[in-house]
């Protein structure tokens, strides 16, 4: 068997080994590869940066553990930015498994920026029904969420005083791994004319590019790369930047494998009678 034929018939466990090493090595020894902040992430950053101190931001973190590798570091970076700017943060999730991720994200970001629950931020918890909640917020947040995640009535939460609908919210941020983003665009941005920023997984990001040029979405943070760019903009070295080293190496390994596979195929088919 020639070398080229051996490459074509490579055991998939070898590929798994390359990928495993490509992921583990940079995570253990980070290289801190260069990261350029793209205009979409810069736009998201600048939208938050432009808000005056004390503005109210609604953050919907609509994701579950399967996509937490991309969206959790993104959530922490965006939350930390809001806290640094002294914005009032109202967090919700429209996914049943969301609270288990939103809570630690809020806790990590709040601890890092020395913020307190109920005074600087609140977590309203999970509510079912995308459209119902989004349209309902146009009427009354209290109708949708009479109490927060910890069963505290909204009227007893200091930062919720005078906040009861989109009219009292300055910016909506949706960090999602699903079509929830489509509904936020339809309702929060288009129907209630709220400024909207999206954070999505990498595979979804390009679906929302058209909404950036139509200004229905003011900024877009896409995948781990977007999160790493946001971290860089914030001068942080978090999980996203650490993860980008691993992602870079794995992409290179896959690209090399693809090129090698095609070269081997080309040589073997030319040799064949």
């Amino acid at each position, binding site marked *: 068997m020639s070398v080229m034929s051996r490459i074509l018939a490579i055991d998939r466990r070898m590929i798994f080994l390359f990928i495993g090493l490509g992921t583990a090595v940079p995570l253990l020894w980070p290289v801190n590869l260069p990261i350029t902040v793209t205009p979409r992430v810069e736009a998201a950053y600048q939208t938050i940066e432009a808000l005056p101190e004390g503005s109210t931001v609604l953050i919907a973190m609509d994701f579950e553990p399967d996509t937490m590798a991309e969206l959790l570091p993104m959530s922490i970076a965006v939350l930390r930015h809001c806290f640094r700017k002294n914005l009032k943060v109202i967090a919700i999730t429209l996914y049943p498994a969301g609270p288990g991720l939103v809570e630690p994200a809020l806790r990590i970001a709040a601890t890092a920026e020395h913020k307190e629950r109920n005074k600087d931020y609140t977590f309203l918890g999970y509510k079912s029904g995308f459209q119902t909640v989004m349209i309902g917020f146009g009427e009354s947040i209290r109708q949708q969420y009479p109490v927060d995640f910890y069963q505290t009535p909204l009227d007893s939460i200091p930062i919720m005083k005078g906040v009861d609908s989109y009219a009292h919210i300055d910016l909506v941020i949706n960090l999602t791994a699903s079509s929830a983003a489509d509904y936020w665009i339809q309702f929060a941005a288009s129907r209630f004319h709220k400024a909207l920023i999206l954070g999505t997984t990498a595979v979804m990001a390009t679906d929302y*590019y058209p909404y950036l040029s139509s200004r229905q979405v003011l900024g877009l943070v896409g995948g781990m790369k977007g999160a790493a760019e946001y971290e860089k903009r914030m001068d942080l070295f978090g999980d996203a930047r650490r993860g980008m080293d691993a992602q870079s190496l794995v992409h290179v390994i896959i690209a090399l494998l693809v090129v090698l596979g095609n070269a081997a195929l080309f040589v073997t088919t030319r040799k064949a009678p």
Partner: protein
Amino acid sequence: MRISLAITFTVGALLIALFFIPNYQAQAVNAKILEWATIVYAFALILGSISLWNTHWRKVKTQREGWPYSVVTMTALVIVTGLGVWQGVGEGSLVSRIYNMVNSPLASTMFALLAFFIASAAFRAFRARNVEATLLLVTAVLMMIGRVSIGEFIWKGFPGFTEWLLDVPNLAAKRAIAIGVGLGAVSTALKIILGIERSYLGRSR
């Protein structure tokens, strides 16, 4: 059948009209209908749970292949639902701990495994067998390298080039697809409201 069609037409037409009527009374009606929607969602959840139970119960009863997994599913459904109803799902509750210690790592692991399978599949499937496949292959490799930090390390212009690919050819195609999907959704909705499309009612006898 006629009653179902009449309900569909009335509710569909009413909701479209309410979307465009800013009057407060119209919006109050809209809010009330949305409350009903929440109740329907809750019932859908119950229906889904019953359906899940029935499917797995049949599997266990007939001892079909993989039936022990069905036992695990049913046990988990009963225990987690029971604990949630009994103790709540707040911070520190048993449901919250089960979520953080079982569900969360399992879901992450499942997704993490994808990287290995995608790498293996890419090696075998990305073959330049014709012009279209070659085009896909070249674009995929360029995007894979250009969209990560190492791309910039290899060539300064790489990120800019991939940005152009995303902003020009990709965006044009995405817009075309979005317009097509939008028109398709409007046409399907109209067909349902006007009773032309009736498959959602089930097979007529």
